[in-house]
C-alpha cells in the first residue's frame, strides 16, 4: 500500500550558527499535491526546500520522501528535482544538452533521451530551440527550459524556488497558469516557494504560511484568505483592516467587540472570553460604504479620500477613534462626496475574523 504522503517533515530544525532558520517544523505533503510555502524573505521557506532537496542537512528532525528517511541519501540520489530561482542552466551546454543532463547521468539510452527531451520541450512549447545556448534565450524561455530540465526526469517531487521571481508581471501570470496545468497533467507533487501571496493563492492546492522559521497556518487558499488564524497571516495575505479590540459583551450568537470606543459585532466562538484582548480583521472588499445609515450599519466615520485602481475604487475612511479603514467598492456610488463628509460602513458579521495573536 502506498502512503498518502510524498514528503514528510518531522520536527525539523535548521540552525546556521546561532540563527535558527527553521524551527521544529512539521509538515506532510500529499501525493500529487501542489503545495506552496509562502512567507516573507528570511522566514525559512527556501531553507525548508533545500533540506528536502538535500542541499542542507537538518540540525534536528527527519525528512521523509516516499516513505523513506533520506538523511543518508545524497542530493544526487534523491528522486526530487529543483527549479532554481536563477534557473542555473549550464551556460556551456545548449538547450538539448541541458535537458538531457539528468537522463545522461542515469545512463538512459540515446533514443530514449532524444524522445524524452523532445516531449519535455513540447510540454513547455519550445520545440524549436534545441540548439540554442541559454544566453540566447529570453528570461521566460530560460524559465521554461529550467522546468523542462527538471520534469524530464520524472521526479517524485518537483521543488520550485521562486521560479517566476525574475519575470515581468504579465509573463508571470501566464506562467502561473501554465505551471498549474502542467502539474495537473503530470500529477507530480509540486512544492513551490514564493513570497508572492497572489501567486500562492492562484496556483496552490494548499498553502503553508511561514514566519520566522515556523508554520503560522496550513490550509486551502480560501481558508488562508477567509479564515486567517493569526494577525500575521491576515496581514500578509491580501489587504485587510485589522483592529485591536476587547470582547465587551456576548449577545445571542454574536460577540460585541470594542475598538477603542467603537463597537462592532462578530460571530461568537467558544474560545472568546469576556474582556479578552483580540484582533478583528475585515477585508476591504467585504465591507460596504453608504451615505445614509442603514440597518446593517456598524460604524460611522468621515470620508477621507478615494483611490481609483482600475477594477475597484479604494475608499479611505477615518473612524472616530482616529484609525483609518479601507473599503473596496466595485461601483463608485459616492459621486460628489467631499472629504470630511460623514459615511457609514457595514459588513456581514460572518465576514469578520477574530484571532488572538
Amino acid at each position: 500500500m502506498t502512503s498518502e504522503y510524498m514528503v514528510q517533515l518531522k520536527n525539523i530544525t535548521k540552525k546556521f550558527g546561532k540563527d535558527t532558520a527553521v524551527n521544529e517544523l512539521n509538515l506532510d505533503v500529499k501525493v500529487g499535491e501542489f503545495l506552496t510555502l509562502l512567507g516573507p524573505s528570511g522566514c525559512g521557506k527556501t531553507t525548508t526546500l533545500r533540506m528536502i532537496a538535500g542541499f542542507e542537512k537538518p540540525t534536528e528532525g527527519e525528512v521523509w520522501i516516499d516513505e523513506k528517511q533520506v538523511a543518508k541519501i545524497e542530493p544526487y540520489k534523491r528522486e526530487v528535482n529543483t527549479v532554481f530561482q536563477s534557473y542555473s542552466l549550464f551556460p556551456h551546454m545548449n538547450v538539448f544538452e541541458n535537458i538531457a543532463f539528468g537522463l545522461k547521468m542515469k545512463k538512459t539510452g540515446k533514443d530514449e533521451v532524444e524522445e524524452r527531451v523532445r516531449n519535455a520541450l513540447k510540454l513547455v512549447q519550445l520545440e524549436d530551440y534545441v540548439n540554442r545556448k541559454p544566453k540566447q534565450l529570453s528570461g521566460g524561455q530560460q524559465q521554461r527550459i529550467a522546468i523542462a530540465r527538471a520534469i524530464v526526469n520524472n521526479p517524485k517531487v518537483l521543488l520550485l524556488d521562486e521560479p517566476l521571481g525574475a519575470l515581468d508581471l504579465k509573463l508571470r501570470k501566464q506562467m502561473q497558469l501554465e505551471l498549474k496545468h502542467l502539474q495537473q497533467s503530470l500529477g507530480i507533487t509540486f512544492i513551490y516557494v514564493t513570497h508572492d501571496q497572489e501567486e500562492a493563492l492562484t496556483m496552490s492546492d494548499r498553502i503553508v504560511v511561514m514566519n520566522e522559521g515556523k508554520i503560522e497556518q496550513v490550509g486551502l487558499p480560501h481558508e488562508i484568505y477567509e479564515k486567517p488564524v493569526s494577525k500575521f497571516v491576515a496581514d500578509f495575505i491580501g489587504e485587510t483592516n485589522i483592529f485591536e479590540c476587547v470582547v465587551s459583551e456576548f449577545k445571542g450568537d454574536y460577540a460585541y467587540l470594542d475598538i477603542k470606543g467603537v463597537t462592532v459585532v462578530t460571530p461568537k466562538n467558544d474560545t472568546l472570553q469576556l474582556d479578552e484582548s483580540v484582533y478583528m480583521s475585515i477585508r476591504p472588499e467585504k465591507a460596504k460604504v453608504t451615505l445614509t445609515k442603514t440597518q446593517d450599519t456598524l460604524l460611522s466615520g468621515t470620508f477621507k479620500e478615494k483611490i481609483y485602481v482600475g477594477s475597484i475604487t479604494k475608499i479611505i475612511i477615518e473612524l472616530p477613534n482616529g484609525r483609518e479603514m479601507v473599503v473596496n467598492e466595485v461601483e463608485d456610488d459616492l459621486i460628489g462626496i467631499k472629504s470630511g463628509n460623514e459615511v457609514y460602513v457595514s459588513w456581514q458579521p460572518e465576514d469578520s475574523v477574530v484571532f488572538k495573536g
Partner: protein
Amino acid sequence: MIKNIRLAYSMLSPSLLWLLLFLVVPIVMVTVISFTTSEGYGGIIYEFSTHAYETAFLSSMYLKVIWNSIVWAFSATVICLLLAYPFAYFIAHAGKWKNLLILLVMIPFWTNLLVRLYAWIILLNGEGVINHFLQNIGLISEPLTLMYTPYAVILGMVYGFLPFMILPIYSSIEQLDKTYLEAAEDLGANPVKTFFTVTIPLTLPGILAGFIITFVPAVSVFVVTDLLTGSKLVMVGNVIRDAFLIEMNWQLGSALSILLMILVLLSVFIFMKFTSSKDKKFLI
C-alpha cells in the same frame, strides 16, 4: 559621442604610449635588425639580408633547441596545471583561510627567481641535501645525478611558474556560481561527474589563461638552464642571449627571437583552438 571617444582615447593614452614605446617599437626594431647585414662584432649594416634566418634554419642545432624549449616548457606547463588545479580548488573552498593561502602563493614573487633557483642547487646537487639524505638512510650508495638533466629544467620551471597557473585558475573557481554545482547534483550527477561535466568546462577560461601565462615565460626562460644544468643544457632563451652578448651577432639573435615569437603565438593559437573548439563563443 565624438567628445566621449576623444575622452576615452585620452584616458587610454598613457597605456597606449607605454605599449607603443616598450612593445611595438622594440618588436619593429628586432624585426628590422633580423633582416640587416652583420658587420661582425655587433655592428649593423642596413642592407637587406636573410642570412640570419638561413643560419637559423640550416643549422639543425637552433631548431633542435627551439623544439626542446617548447617540449620542456609544455611539459612544465602541463605539470603546473595538474598541480595548480587541485590546489586552486582547495584554496577557493578554504573559507577564512583563503586570503592567507593566496598570500603564501604570492610570497615567492617577492624574491627573484635567480635567488630561489640557488636554493634548488643546494637541494639537488651531488653533495646536496637530497642526495645526502638518501645516502644516509641507505637507499642509495652513489649520489644521483639530479641536476644537469631535462627533469631538473622542468622542475625549475614548474617551481618558478606555478603561481602563474594557480592564480587565474583560483579566480575562475572562486567566481564559479555554486548554484551550477547544485543544479548538477540535483540532476543526479555525483561529485566526480559534477566536477568533469560542470566545474572543469566552466573554469576553462581560467585554465586557458593560466596555460598561456605559464607557457609563454617558461619557453623563453634561460636562468633555469643556466643554474640547474650549469649551462650544459640550453633553451632558446640561452641561445638568443648568447647570440646577442657573446657572439655579438644581433641579426641571429633577432631572427631567433622572431622565430620564437611566431612559434609561441602559433602554439598558443593551436592550444586555444584545441581546447575551445566546441565552445568558442562561450570562452571568448
